């Protein structure tokens, strides 16, 4: 592969994803004139917001070499219990305070994950499978199992749910919550690329033992990571409540594999150490594009799941091929070294 081509392709296949998205968009636009409207675009943005927030959390965990399936449980636990508590107290402290409280709850639940994973060095998948069930069980048994409808939500939440940043003729609108979502995405990107904490997450995902030896406090970094991811999940949960104008303790859980698929499609390595916010955004957009608009291509909606699955396999396949490319099959195949002879 030539240098220019591999630059276009990007470090995590971002270029490839952009190309795939463009192909899908063109195909949809050609087959249905209704597709290429601002309304469709804003609907895509709206449906991508919650998955993107979850995906950012999953991205960070994947980079650190783990896998988290408990985030939907944390999200709905934090959002539902906070909303229920606020309603029960008869207070309405405003949507931002409610979101802050929910994120605090999410951080505490994330702390549980982090402590168990980091202190006892247990496999992340198993731990989060366990905590997912625990969080969900506690939520349903002790906090509540009743659906909270828009009528019962605090007025401030309903007001926020109805605030649009931009309305277009024909019924489309850009929801106000896109602002905090973009801010969070930028913050996560900066955290990952510009802070020692972020670089430590990459380092731990690359080689945990090496991270320990170079002086990274692996336990502390992991605990903080899961706290952060818990808070992020809770934000996603509140976003879900706000956008859907309801709080249902049975919702969200079950969507984890779609989110993980989108992140992996976005170039994050399932083995840790690789992934970017840009790739994740593209992965989420692609999956939502498929989910929302496959019917426009004349493909029955029952094929959605299969389409996402095929995309995921293609994404992982591209990753595997990319990983095989730079290294030959054995050290001896490398050309003789001549580039850095020590100048005496």
């Amino acid at each position, binding site marked *: 592969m030539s240098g220019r081509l591999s630059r276009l392709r990007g470090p995590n296949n971002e270029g490839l994803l952009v190309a795939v998205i463009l192909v899908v968009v063109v195909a949809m636009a050609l087959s249905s004139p209704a597709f290429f409207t601002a309304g469709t675009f804003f609907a895509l943005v709206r449906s991508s917001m919650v998955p993107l927030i979850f995906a950012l959390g999953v991205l960070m965990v994947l980079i650190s070499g783990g896998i988290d399936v408990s985030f939907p449980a944390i999200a709905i636990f934090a959002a539902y219990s906070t909303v229920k508590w606020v309603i029960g107290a008869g207070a309405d402290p405003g949507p931002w305070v409610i979101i802050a409280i929910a994120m605090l709850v999410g951080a505490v639940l994330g702390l549980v994950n982090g402590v168990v994973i980091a202190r006892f060095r247990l496999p992340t998948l198993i731990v989060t499978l366990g905590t997912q069930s625990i969080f969900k069980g506690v939520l349903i048994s002790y906090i509540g199992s009743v659906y909270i409808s828009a009528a019962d939500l605090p007025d401030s939440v309903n007001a926020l749910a109805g605030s649009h940043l931009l309305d277009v003729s024909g019924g489309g609108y850009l929801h106000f919550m896109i602002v905090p979502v973009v801010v969070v995405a930028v913050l996560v990107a900066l955290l990952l*690329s*510009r*802070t*020692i*904490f*972020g*670089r430590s997450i*990459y*380092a731990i*995902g*690359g*080689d945990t*033992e*090496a*991270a320990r*030896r*170079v*002086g*990274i406090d692996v336990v502390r970094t992991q605990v903080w990571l899961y706290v952060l991811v818990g808070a992020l999940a809770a934000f996603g949960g509140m976003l879900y409540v706000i956008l859907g104008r309801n709080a249902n303790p049975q919702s969200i859980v079950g969507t984890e594999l779609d989110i993980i698929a989108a992140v992996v499609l976005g170039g994050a*390595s399932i083995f*840790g*150490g*690789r992934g970017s916010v840009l790739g994740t955004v593209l992965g989420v957009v692609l999956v939502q594009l498929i989910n929302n608009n496959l019917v426009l291509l004349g493909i029955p909606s029952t094929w959605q799941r299969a389409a996402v699955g095929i995309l995921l396999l293609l994404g992982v396949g591209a990753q595997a091929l990319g990983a095989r490319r*730079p*290294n030959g*099959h*054995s*050290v*001896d*195949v*490398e*050309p*003789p*070294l001549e*580039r*850095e*002879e*020590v*100048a*005496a």
Partner: protein
Amino acid sequence: MAPSAAPVLEVHDVVKTYGGIHALNGVSLELLPGEVHCLAGENGSGKSTLIKIISGVEKPDSGTVVINGRTHRHLTTGDAIRSGIQVIYQDFSLFPNLSAAENIAMLSELADRRRISSRSRIRAAARRVVEDLGLRLDLDADVADLTVADRQLIAICRALVNDAKVLIMDEPTTALTHTEVERLFTIVRRLQERGVAVMFVSHKLDEVLEISQRVTVLRNGAQVASGAAADHTPRTIAKAMTGREVSDERLVGEVPPDAPVLLELDRLGRAGGFSDVSFALRAGEILGITGLLGSGRSEIAEAIFGIHPADSGTIRVAGTERRIRSIRDAVHAGIGYVPEDRLTQGLFLDVSIADNMIAASLDSYRARGGLLDRRRVRDSIADLFRRLRIQAPNVGAMVRSLSGGNAQRVVLAKWLDRKPAVLVLNGPTVGVDIGSKEEIIAILREQAAAGMGVIIISDDIPELVTACHRILIVHEGRVVSELTGDEVDAHEIQRRMAA
């Protein structure tokens, strides 16, 4: 700079026991600035434990570590790093997913307790070290894409980014070829001139004596020799390490002139790898193939075993022409192969020794009904375990827990159990200590004497001289020399390889 008087590192009478067994039993040594001190010993002699104590990973039961005149009772890894002690581990401990620059600078960024990571600061720090050592490295490349030798240079640069006073290199030459070792030594000497004390951990005797001023030898946790390197010869160190006389004499018998030809290559070639390779291997013969890195020596072996099949020429096994397009073909033709990287290519690490041994020959234990003949399996496992003198508690032990020498014997056992006509070994003693090396070569001699044809691919020239009847030298994919009988001599091989 000549070594000055005050030592930068002193270890006094360190004792460490694990579960009642002395890993270290009263070891003392000191390191002067600008000195290369070699720590030699076989696997399990306590070298690694000593490194762990000096770097603060393990606490000694008794004894002290003194760094720059300061006595540390409870040395932590942080203390050690801040006092200027750096360890370059055998696996380098680099981050494959990060750039070379970030790998180098990560340590100082952490030591400075930074919060914000700046790309320009990282690049500047990395560039400073790299230029300081007069190296040329692609700082933007991911470490995963670099060669082993370059990764090692990155590890060295990283160790130096924070002004290391003491550099401990754990088996730094294991994965390197002859030229790369020379380059490493040039760098070590340069560090020495700047007053860095280097502790060189190795079991390769020639290297030890070439680079170091002083030597400390450990055996079973005890300090059995220490003193000026000039007072030692490879033989005295080998004796100290193993506790017995070790022979590296050339010990090859005659191949009977009427021995049948087992393997015959006729103008074998593979585009981009090698071409026009012809030779015949007879029963009872040990043939060595050597050459520089990239000469094509490994490709020849991989073609014989069908990993990367040849695309021209013919291979005849025991007189019949065989088409070897895959590993399966080679195994059917009666060829066995011990790969270069046995840990990833030759063994199931988390499986027992016993299961590894019979992994290649399961078919031959088929009883009626397609089940395994358990009794025969057990018998041959016990036989191999004994014959190859594998040091492990029992055949149920995981291969992961074995030392390099013992793991290599398990790979050998796996192929011997198949009773191949021809056994090809690629770097059979890489990472194996002297005692085991001698025994592995003895096993190969036995097998050859019993009528097997053996091919050893290696760049360990003394080992080839010790074991081989005949040596082929490969250069740029062609066999350029053939040495037989009395011509086989280390200096002669070196000379022809460089030519």
